[in-house]
């Protein structure tokens, strides 16, 4: 059903490296310097190769979302080093990090985060607006991506006229449209039932295989983790284990 992923144009990043994410001794403390300071990430070391499909698991409050936000340049870190696709991410200006996010990162969230007054097509086209793509072209591309995800008929629906699974597919199309190096998904199936969860994970798997986009999924669900090639366990801000999953299966 969703097997139509042909590259539309060359990859937008010429200096794409084999190592997508390189993190060394990364520390992050919330409310640094205040009495209720909270040391959330305690010396994280990790590498992610380009094209990997991996998941991060861990108890609630273990720092998964925090780590994902740092990787997605939505949040900064205190000490250590983080290199994203060959670019050192360290005290960047707001403008520069916005550019980096726009070009290299696609986000998928548990709560979808679609703009409520924009229809499906406009939501998908939005990253291209910030990339300076002309309106006509970005709408055409958005339609193309919606069709790939089986939502061509719903292009002009507002988010509140879509089901949870449909909303998440719109969000995935939006994450894909700027042809990022990596897609970060924070509990993408958290708000979905099992059947829809399976659908979404199948799509993400498909995108990873056909487009070679690195896919990092934060999840609570074992079933989601079992569908990925590699699972990192986080516990109290440190990596407890990092295992290859020899036989990934999609079974919900």
């Amino acid at each position, binding site marked *: 059903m969703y097997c139509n992923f042909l590259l539309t144009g060359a990859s937008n990043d010429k200096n794409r490296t084999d190592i997508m994410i390189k993190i060394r001794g990364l520390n992050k403390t919330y409310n640094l310097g205040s009495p209720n300071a909270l040391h959330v990430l305690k010396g994280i070391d990790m590498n992610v190769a380009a094209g990997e499909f991996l998941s991060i698991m861990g108890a609630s409050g273990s720092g998964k979302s925090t780590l994902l936000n740092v990787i997605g340049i939505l949040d900064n870190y205190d000490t250590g080093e983080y290199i994203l696709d060959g670019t050192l991410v360290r005290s960047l200006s707001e*403008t520069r990090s*916005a550019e980096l996010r726009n070009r290299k990162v696609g986000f998928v969230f548990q709560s979808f*985060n679609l*703009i409520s007054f924009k229809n499906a097509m406009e939501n998908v086209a939005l990253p291209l607006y910030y990339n300076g793509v*002309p*309106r006509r072209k970005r709408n055409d591309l958005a339609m193309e991506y919606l069709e790939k995800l089986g939502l061509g008929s719903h292009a002009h629906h507002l988010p509140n006229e879509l089901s949870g699974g449909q909303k998440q597919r719109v969000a995935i199309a939006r994450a894909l449209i700027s042809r990022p190096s990596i897609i970060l998904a924070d509990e993408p199936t958290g708000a979905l039932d099992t059947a829809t969860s399976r659908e979404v994970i199948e799509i993400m798997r498909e995108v990873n295989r056909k487009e070679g986009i690195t896919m990092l999924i934060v999840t609570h669900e074992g079933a989601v983790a079992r569908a990925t090639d590699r699972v990192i366990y986080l516990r109290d801000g440190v990596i407890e284990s990092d295992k290859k999953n020899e036989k990934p299966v999609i079974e919900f």
Partner: protein
Amino acid sequence: MFDILGEILETMKRNKMRTFLTGFAVAWGIFMLIVLLGAGQGLQNGVRSNFEGRAINSVTLFPGWTSMPYRGYRADRAIRFDERTVDFVRTNIPEVVNLSAWIMYRPQSIAYGKEYGSWNIEACTPDLFYLDFMVIVKGRFLNEADMRAKRKVIVLGKQAEETLFKGEESLGKYVEADGIAYQVVGVYDRPQSQSFSSSLYIPLTTGNQLYNRGWGIRGIEFTVNGIDSEEQADMLTERIRALMGPYLGFDPKDTSAMYVRNSAKMAAETQKIFGYINMFLWVIGFACVMAGIVGVGNIMLVTVKERTREIGIRKALGATPWSIVRMVIIEAIFITTVAGYIGIIFGLGLTELISRGLSAAGGGGGGNTPAMFQDPTVGLGIVFAVLGLLVTCGVVAGLIPSLRATRIRPIEAMRAD
């Protein structure tokens, strides 16, 4: 640029209520400003037109009785103006533009055939025409030839003509006053004036010859150039007294010997009052506009708060801080400009409508209702200045909330469910 506008228009279209409320505040403010300024202008025009249809910068000299002795003359001496006085004034006061002198007679019975009525006969010089804002309906006013030849000619008022001639042709006919026959050379009207247009005019020289009862000329009026302030008007009055005193034989300080009515001074005083009224209206109008601007700022601020999540999402998708600022500011400018424009249209429309209604009801052909309010319109220059002000205020109104918007952190914004 086109794309930016498109994106913002789209956003505004999808949030109609917000856009409407914001715009309404501005449109209302600007509407009130224009209506108030229009009212001020209307009042001013109305009072101006009530200046008895007289030239604004004019000086009138009336002879009186001396109250102080002067160079051997006793007090209580009558001062007399004659034709030489008129020439003296004309040649010695450089500011004089048009000058007229007249002799006013008591109401006289005037007859044509069986018809008769009673009007003042005023003997005057031809320049009175320029001082009194009269309009010649028929024929002509008095001229220099009439003066030189001391012709027995007369210019009738419109009412007098109607009463005497009942629609019959009056030009060239003779009317009789006090046993003297005058040929009608013209008919005048004073459409702007509410005061009597009941005087009939004959040449000064003719009047002097026929009616000289020893009083001489009853008044000399002239318009003056270049008198803009009260101080200048006062100085002119002083200068005239200093000049006329020695010539006519009275002490320049003796105000009862010659009365000087300086309407330039009156005009300057009224001008000052209007200055205050206008300032007052401006202050109120400006307060209205400010209220509109504060309204916009407030709504934009609330909006930004409401849109925290949207802005967070946009940032996560790669919106730079500048693009967020730009979005909010352009939206504010757009709303203030368009709404301001609408307010201007409605404001001008209303003042124009009132103006038309007033002239249809009052002005027209020759209605004599006193117009306290006339032509309440506002100049285009002011309108454009206000529009400029609006755009500036739009920027200010957008700046504060947009700077706030740049500080929104995408993760926190998106967490708010």
